[in-house]
């Protein structure tokens, strides 16, 4: 199984008020819990069930993901540049696993 490597694509700078695109991708099986292994046992569900993006500590985009999100979940979303600061990306996995990345955004007035 692939190790869950999160990746983001986000501009390093933006002008104040500008809408910018964020792409977030994580390698993950997104095991639905509907499949069975060779012995006929149900393979337990293990998915990324939540993704949160924070901008200077405030939630700016949150996604609740269910079994029907494809493996290696990809999200593309749009934020407004308000001020320079830290963008934080957190993926929550079933069973309590957490993967995160942070990015410094420079906002020109």
């Amino acid at each position, binding site marked *: 199984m692939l190790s869950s490597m999160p990746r983001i694509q986000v501009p390093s700078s933006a002008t104040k008020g500008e809408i910018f695109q964020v792409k977030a991708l994580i390698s993950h099986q997104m095991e639905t819990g509907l499949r069975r292994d060779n012995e006929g046992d149900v393979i337990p569900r293990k998915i990324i069930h939540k993704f949160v993006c924070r901008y200077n500590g405030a939630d700016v*985009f949150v996604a609740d993901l269910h079994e029907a*999100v494809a493996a290696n*979940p990809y999200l593309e979303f749009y934020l407004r540049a308000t001020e320079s600061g830290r963008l934080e990306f957190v993926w929550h996995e079933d069973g309590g696993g957490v993967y995160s990345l942070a990015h410094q955004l420079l906002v020109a007035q």
Partner: protein
Amino acid sequence: MLNVQSYQEEGVLQETPATGLTRRELFLASAAGVASVTIVSLAKAHDDVDEAAELIKRLTGRIAIASDRLHLVMPRTFPNGYTVPLNVEIDSPMTESDYVRYVRVVAPRNPLIEVATFHFFPQLSQPRVSTRIRLAEPQDVLAFAELNDGTLLMTKTWVDVATNGCA
């Protein structure tokens, strides 16, 4: 206050028997090794707005209005059900007085109908998102969005997939 309410509704939803029935049936069918496609095709439904509105009413307890402010863009046909592109966007100024709280996507003919819910924040995010989803069979995918005044908007789009993405 309203925000809290909408989260609570989602929490309750997980255990709502009305929605659990179809899912449980389909889950059992697939767990038993029966091709869920066969089961579902027996119950093949005529897709109309009424049916979609009925499902949303069961999920949220509220009435949704079909709206062209909500854009759900997916390919009409796609070769596999494992990674079907989905783009959803809502026309909204995203000001403090007029914004979209969330948009929720459901695939009514999947063994587990919930796909994803995306939450947005006034002034900070745009109600526009793309991802990739699994579809078990050709179906109408539904999206419904809640505005800050509590209005529910809905739309749907037909997607034909050649293979089962949930197997």
